[in-house]
């Protein structure tokens, strides 16, 4: 199985990849992970490729061979779309992060509604407001855990909920475990409550 994770530096893409990989390893599955985070801390694009199972040879997922995308930011989801099989699941945090150059008018951040539409043209999309759910759970830092909850509830992963929670517990500070579990549950609930027929209203121009 080929999973792609995408986001912006600071989203926790690398950490989330490791949580999934550790959970998979614990269940005795072969895992390979490829990451790109050259300027991860400086607002750059971060991508990781996670390949689970015996078919994984190299670390990179070839074009349109991906089975799933976990995207922490809409534009970054779009950037990795070409790696996905038609109909593959996309779990998206729909909160955009507009870069400085877009604010300056040097590039145009696309309308989020349009991004979602384009993704839906080929993929099975579930979008969640993970950023605000994480804030509700206690901190924006846990956005990635909300996403993990949504991913788990989607039943797309060959990894059990318990293994994911154990891997989260092993990775976060002791005093944050409870809050993280709450964030995970909010993510699960977001999946259950998600309405496929949700109408996307065009947003105002975010970069202007």
């Amino acid at each position, binding site marked *: 199985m080929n999973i792609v994770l995408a986001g*912006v*530096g*600071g989203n926790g893409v690398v950490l989330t990849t*490791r949580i999934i*990989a550790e959970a998979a*390893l614990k269940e005795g599955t*072969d*895992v*390979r*992970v*490829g*990451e*790109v*985070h*050259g*300027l991860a*801390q*400086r*607002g*750059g*694009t971060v991508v990781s490729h996670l390949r689970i199972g015996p078919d994984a*040879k*190299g*670390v*990179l997922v*070839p*074009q*349109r*061979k991906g089975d799933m995308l976990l995207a922490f930011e809409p*534009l*970054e989801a*779009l*950037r990795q*779309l*070409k790696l996905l*099989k*038609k109909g593959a699941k996309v779990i998206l945090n729909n909160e955009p992060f*507009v*870069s*400085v*150059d*877009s*604010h*300056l008018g*040097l*590039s*145009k*951040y*696309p309308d989020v509604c*349009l*991004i979602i539409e*384009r*993704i839906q*043209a*080929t993929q099975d999309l579930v979008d969640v407001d993970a950023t605000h759910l994480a804030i509700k759970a206690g901190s*924006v830092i846990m956005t990635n855990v909300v996403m993990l909850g949504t991913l788990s509830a989607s039943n797309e992963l060959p990894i059990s909920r318990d293994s994911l929670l154990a891997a989260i517990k092993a990775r976060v500070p002791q005093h944050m475990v409870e809050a993280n579990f709450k964030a995970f549950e909010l993510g699960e609930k977001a999946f259950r409550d998600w309405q496929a027929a949700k109408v996307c209203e065009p947003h*105002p121009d*975010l*970069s*202007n």
Partner: protein
Amino acid sequence: MSGNEAVARGCLEAGVSVVTAYPGTPATNVVEALGEVAPELGFWAEFSVNEAVAIEVAAGAAFSGVRAMMATKMLGVNLIADALTVVTVTGVRAGLVIVTADDPQQFSSQNAEDTRFYGMLAKAPVLEPADGQEAKDMAKYAFELSEQLELPVFLRITPRICHSSFPVELGELTKPKRDGKFVKDKKRFVMISTYSRPRQKLLREKMERAKLINDGNRWNKVMDFQNGKQFPKGAVFNTFGIIASGLTYPYVEEVIEVMGLSARVLKLATTFPLPENLIGSFIRELDQVMIVEEGDNVTEMQVRALAQHRRLSARIIGKDDNILPWSGELNPDLVGDALGKVFGIKFREELTEPYVEAEKLITPRIPTLCAGCPHRASYFAIKEAIKKKGKGGSVMGDRGCYNQGAYEPLEGMDTCICMGASIAMASGVFHSGSAEPSLAVIGDGTFYHAGIPSLLSAVHNRANITVLIFDNSITAMTGHQVNPGSGQNLMGLPAPFTNLKKVVEALGVEHVKVINSFDTKALVAAVMEEVDFDGPSVLISRSPCALVVERNLRKRKLKMPVAVVDVDKCTGCKVCMKKIGCPAFGWSQDPKPHMEVLPHCNGCGLCMQTCPFNAISIPGKKEGVLGMTIRKEVPK
């Protein structure tokens, strides 16, 4: 474990006794991992001040009979070349392994140079692992090979090894040796020409021996594939062959299996010197051979030469025929495209119309200086000073985090060439007769690395330049590694705090000032003054890295006061954005267009100085505090 960790583990299993490096992506955490366990396991690990020093420390240890490893990114190999090309002549007494991380895709490098040329130049063998297991096992083996040949050995890895994670089976650790002794032998170690010249013959002999050893290298494997199924060599008949070096092998294997291709494959781990007998017999039985390698056409050139030398008629194809791309890293799709040209198949799933439509919306995301970064404040001040002065001016840049200041809107530096280039290039601009002020910016880590000789030279040659040292007392770019200004070393031991100001003064610079990076008024005034001074002057703009401060505060559960926008006062003019372009600025239209501060604001306060309407404030920040701080009302 990651490829970098696997390499580190391999070194531990080899009983490495001395480890040196200078931080450089993607190789940095090879040595970081070792620095953590060095005190416990009883070996020495250091971040040297630059790569030239690092290789010399490692070679000194290997001369003294203990195993040593030096790690660098490929650009650092340019600095080690001076020592390396002589150390291959002397040879080593214990294993000396150079781990070099090449970056063919240029994720974080100024060029895409291929280290294997340095192997050829210096006559040092090069090994290339295909995955994490091999990275670990070959790191260990590299010491054995180094001792067998008495030569330094390169282990060449790339980001897809370094930053990938693999299942790795571990071996036993070996206790490091701590009983090094340098045994004198002037004809071997004093490389004046009298003693060096006779040793060239020995080096040539070593290369011939290395080829024979590589013929039997256990990671060089030949296998046959028929309709995508793997067979032992010779079990099925093939006329088409592939030589796949290092981590391109898994890509080749994947394409062959998925597409059901038939080919004989040589998985090549020893990319210099080539295992000539193995390759000779491999191509002798084939009509056509494709060379798959990342970087330049290093293997391809050598295989062509070998085929000519041995009068073999197989057609060699690869980069020279533009069947494989010349630049960038390889991936399964590119390997599939290349094999597709031979077999007439399509591995790559084409992007259909809806995918193409979606691609059209994609815009690039340019990295920025972090929210609260003191470099932003320094650039802002330089820009203001140059503007006020009205004489123009160029800012020669260097290599570090502050490179992000080259983008809009700061556009704070005009060059980025290599470590330490800023000061010397600013001197060059001055000596060219330029009428404009000549400035240089360099970080503290880079200054210690390569800036000191150029500043000394500027003093000696009376260059009228103004140098700004952006001092955050850490090597931030590669992930906050220690440097001589950090007060501790890689192993976590206390180290003398280098007094940067005194160093600069000792070099003979008469005008030296230390200024808080967020004291914009003082910094602007100082730049304006020093630009007029006839001679080299140095301004140390000092403030800690925002990420370090933020993490330390978060660990202690302390909160930072952050900026707040008065929506009534903000006119949405975007002056703040146009002046300093902070990533913590968002934009809102509700109820009217205004700047909105995002949660990752670190409260440095620079934006307050840019707003023409005083719409930005930082509630809870003490009066007169410059830069990031904690909230006033924090309980004692």
